[in-house]
Each structure stands twice: as structure tokens, then as C-alpha cells.
């Protein structure tokens, strides 16, 4: 059995723990694209093997790839990528765990937060920290968790009502970016708003749990 939780900690104290039921259709589409890969292609192969069409945060549709190989260029250059990266660094508010102030009800076709709270130190912004990933495995119960901290470095309170999980599908060769798409895979509206006071901190944890 698989289930998912969203956990919210404010200033080190857990203020919400609830079941996440808010994957959006982008998640199933990238899962399909990954499973629909074949592996085993020849060394000269380049381009896509499996793909899906997702909706970006601006609402436009675009193609992402579950299995992809960068194109040929006649030099030794850095190439590669991933189908679904989440671990955005500090200050990156485009992918990974994002928070917002909107409260529109969740729906399967959503592709963005209602009102994203951007990274920053001005009023109405939160400082986006790095992600951490933890896990535990056993015969009967296992979990994997991705978490991110947000700090209010402004002089005004910031209220959080929604949480989103955004993935990045990206393949590159040197400075030539062949694919770079960010898309939301889950969004949860918190049952009660959480207010982060100046110098306060918020921790959001998405935990996926597997049990027998």
C-alpha cells in the first residue's frame, strides 16, 4: 500500500500532518513516460524513446521525456539529464517544494499554485532553503521524504495556505539545453493557514509511505 503525507512544522513545532491526495495529472503522465521506456538502445541512438505531454506552470502544454539521449556533437562535452529532478538549491523557487498563499480547491488538471510566494527577503516573500531527502526501509514499512525550509527574512508576517511539488525534466549537452521543462506534480491546500512571523521558519515535508 502506498500513501503520502504532507507535514508542516512552524518554528520547529508540527502544526499539520495530513494525507496528501493531491497528485495532479502531470504526475501520472511523467510516470507513464518513465515506465514506457525500453532501455537497451544502441550507443549511437540520440533523441527520445518515451515521452508525455504535460502542462507547465504558465498553462502551456509541452513534451517531456521519460527516456532521452542527447544529440551528437563532434567534441567531448558534458551531456545528460534526468526525467524528474526535485532537488532545487537555495533561492530556487521554480521547482522542488514551493509554497503559496492561494486557497483554490485542488483539482487533477491544475498546473500551478494559486498564488506562489516567491523567494526573497521583501515583505510577502520567503527565503527558500535547500532540500533534504531522508528515507527508511524495512520488510513491512518504508518511507522516503523530501523536505524544504522557508525562512521569513522580511519585517511582515507571511501566510501560507498551499503547498506544491514541482519536477524538472531536463537534458543538456554542454550549454545547449535540449529539454528543460518544469511542471507541478502535486498540490495540497492546507486546512488552516499557517502564518510565518518575521524571522520565523517553516518546514514542509512530503513523505511517501509504503506498507505491506
Amino acid at each position, binding site marked *: 500500500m502506498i*500513501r503520502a503525507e504532507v507535514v508542516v512544522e512552524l518554528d520547529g513545532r508540527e502544526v499539520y500532518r495530513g494525507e496528501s491526495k493531491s497528485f495532479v495529472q502531470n504526475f501520472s503522465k511523467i510516470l507513464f513516460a518513465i515506465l514506457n521506456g525500453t532501455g*537497451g538502445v544502441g550507443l549511437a541512438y540520440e533523441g527520445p524513446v518515451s515521452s508525455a505531454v504535460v502542462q507547465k506552470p504558465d498553462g502551456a502544454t509541452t513534451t517531456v521525456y*521519460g527516456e532521452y539521449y542527447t544529440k551528437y556533437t563532434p567534441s567531448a562535452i558534458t551531456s545528460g539529464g534526468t526525467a*524528474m529532478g526535485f*532537488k532545487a538549491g537555495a533561492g530556487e523557487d521554480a521547482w522542488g517544494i514551493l509554497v503559496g498563499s492561494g486557497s483554490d480547491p485542488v483539482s487533477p488538471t491544475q498546473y500551478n499554485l494559486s498564488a506562489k510566494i516567491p523567494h526573497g527577503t521583501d515583505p510577502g516573500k520567503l527565503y527558500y532553503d535547500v532540500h533534504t531527502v531522508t528515507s527508511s526501509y524495512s520488510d513491512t514499512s518504508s518511507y522516503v521524504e523530501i523536505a524544504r525550509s522557508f525562512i521569513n527574512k522580511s519585517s511582515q508576517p507571511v501566510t501560507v495556505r498551499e503547498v506544491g511539488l514541482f519536477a524538472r525534466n531536463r537534458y543538456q*549537452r554542454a550549454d545547449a539545453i535540449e529539454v528543460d521543462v518544469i511542471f507541478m506534480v502535486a498540490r495540497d491546500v492546507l486546512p488552516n493557514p499557517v502564518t510565518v512571523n518575521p524571522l520565523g521558519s517553516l518546514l514542509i515535508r512530503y513523505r511517501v509511505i509504503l506498507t505491506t
Partner: protein
Amino acid sequence: MSQPLNPMRGFIEIEVRDREGRVIQRGRHEMKSFTNNFLKILEGFFNSYGNYPSEYVAKPASKATVVAPDGTSKDAWTEAYYDYHRCGGVAMATRAGAGVDSYGIVVGSGTTPFNLNNYALATKIAHGTGAGQLNYDVMSLDDLGLDTSVSPPVYRVRLMRGFKNLTSSTITITEVSVIARAYWKYTGGVVNDVLFLIARDVLPTSYTVPAGGSASVAVVIEVAMG
């Protein structure tokens, strides 16, 4: 229609036909058996950056340590960069070709109870035409899309494979698995090629495929939304 209790669950749908093509047995069972390997790949994706981490050139940027069907621990990559062109890959492929019994939907005749650390079928039924073997067809995957007629809505993805019994004896299927493949290469060579079991179910009912008959096995993954 009942409401899904979990954000993600799966069903196994099996149909057995005799040599004349008549359906002689059919069933649908909820899966209870995604494995730790599946979760580890998700962990690998959580650890994937999604941008260019220069310090990882010529290495995987993110990987998951899974247990291969032979019981050995191996790294399955989820993000990689190489200092050569034509680099790329896939972290959890299942679309195996005809005759390939090492990944995709793979069936067995064992009944060992499931636990999350399972890494192989108890007793795999191999591809072939010899006694006790089934002929493995090509895998097919279908994006079944969003179903809003249930509450909450669900999005379904289906993996499917056909098996023919080309032997002169009946063959009984008692367990069904999904085995995935992580595969990464660049122009100079294959740098990661690992198989790992992501789901295994011991069926509550055994399915008997008569000589000359066939079985169709589908795994439907259902993600609840909203």
C-alpha cells in the same frame, strides 16, 4: 463507485483463453505489493537536481541502491552527466520486447509470501517453448487518462503483456511481478544497466493456462487526484 483510500494503487487483471481463443478464466485483484525498490527509485528522483551539477561530470548525479533479481545490491541511476555526447537514459523502463523475460511483466509459479524487500519472483516461469515455459509477448503500455466519473478522480496507466503456452502441458500462474530496467549510456559505452523488481503479487487465485492457450496480464496503476 468506492473511493480510493490511497493516492496510488494498482490492480492486476488476468484473462486466460483456451487454444480456440475462448475465455476460460478471468480475474481482477488489487495489488498490495509495490516493493522497496520502487520507493528507492522515487528517492533517487527526489535526490535528482534537475540542472547541471558540474561536480558530477562523468558520474551519476543521483542514484538509488536497489536489489537486483539475483539478490545483489546495485546502483540504478536517476540522473547522470557524462563528458561526452549522446548521453542519457531511463530510470525505470518496463517496455520489454517479445521473448524478453528479464523485465516488464514477468510471471511465476511460486507462493512465497510478499514483503517489501522482495527482489525476485519466488519461481519465475521462463520464456520459451519447453516444458514449464511460456512464450513472452512484447510489453505494451497505455495512458488511459483521467477518469472523473469516480470521486476522487483517478488517472490510470496500464502495462500489459500476453503469454502463450506453446507446450503440451498446462502451466499455472500464481504470482505476477513488474521488473524495471535502469539503463544509461553515452557514445562510448553503456554505463548503467540494472534490473530490479518494483512489484510482486501472489495471486489469491491461481490461473491455469492450458496447452495451446494464452494469458493476458495487465497491471493498472491508478493515482487518485484531488
